[in-house]
């Protein structure tokens, strides 16, 4: 959008372009990444149950007992907190890089790469901090 002057067009109209373009992405990411984590946990548990049913190596009843016995609510809370923070990091860093990119198509690619690299580094750092604080 920056390269094709669409952000300039928003600013000319008096729109707060960072608020208009970046805020929805951050809100969406902070909402949807935890939801994805919940879905993936559910699918993982369901997949394990189906594997037990199909293979017969472990009975479904034993599987359910195992799942309940090993359950620790704190790990779910940590997972959701991490998902929430990672969602913020991914959206804010990538949106910032995209918003302030300049030049032509080449710079858009470079901004994308920077967004991914900085997000990965910040996620590793945030992972360390949250783990140290909560576990």
């Amino acid at each position, binding site marked *: 959008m920056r390269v094709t002057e669409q952000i300039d067009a928003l600013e000319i109209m*008096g729109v707060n372009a960072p608020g208009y373009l970046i805020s929805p992405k951050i809100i969406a990411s902070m909402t949807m990444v935890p939801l994805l984590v919940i879905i993936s946990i559910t699918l993982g548990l369901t997949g394990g149950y189906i594997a037990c049913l199909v293979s017969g190596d472990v009975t479904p009843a034993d599987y359910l007992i195992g799942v309940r016995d090993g359950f620790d609510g704190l790990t779910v809370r940590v997972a959701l907190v991490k998902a929430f923070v990672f969602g913020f990091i991914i959206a804010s860093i990538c949106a910032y890089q995209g918003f302030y990119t300049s030049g032509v198509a080449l710079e858009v690619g470079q901004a994308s790469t920077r967004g991914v690299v900085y997000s990965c580094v910040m996620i590793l750092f945030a992972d360390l901090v949250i783990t140290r604080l909560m576990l």
Partner: protein
Amino acid sequence: MIEIKDIHKTFGENEVLKGISANFQPGKNNLIIGGSGSGKTTLLKCIVGLHEPTKGEVIFAGENFTKMNFEQRVPIRTHIGMLFQNSALFDSMTVEENIIFPLNLFTTMSKSEKLDRANFCLKRVNLENTNNLYPAELSGGMKKRVGIARAISMQPKYLFVDEPNSGLDPKTSILIDDLISELTEEYQITTVIVTHDMNSVMGIGEHVLFLHDGQKWWEGSNKEIAHTDNKELNDFVFASKFMRAAKAKL
């Protein structure tokens, strides 16, 4: 009226604009011309607030735009329409949605009123029945016309146009120039056009500002250009054999 006073703009160590002053009158096509790198687009961006001038003032109808913060500028911005070099239409929106976009933000019009306004603007630029097309489905000339339709949707007092002829064939360029000129006269808009297209200069340049090396080098009308002895302006305007031959006939 737009008044610019002693505009300077520096990027790092590079001083792009070196103290430009001018007045742009309503109902006139005010053209800013100059070679590549002369600072004309930077000047336009300083006027509309996309760049902050390092020094100097931009005054819209007596109000000092330069000293205002973002919120204070919003009422003036609602009177500004701008056509960008690449049209800058929102890719994810249809033609109609592009035109209605500023109306959604700044007016309390009903949905049907907004649709009527969009249809009126599209009719004004001769693009009826394109409401549901996306920018990717339009030609370069059509995109420019949709850009103009969006720019006039809020009935602006000021219209800024950046290189309206870039990437267009000569016939379409003339159509776009004529359309801008008609709208300027019809609605008494203060229009500022950045261009290096000599056909535009000679066709619609009622007030021409020639920039050279970041400074205002010459100011006058298209009728005066042929008779000026300003060397840099002559070198710029009459660079081609065709233009030199045309000048010789005058």
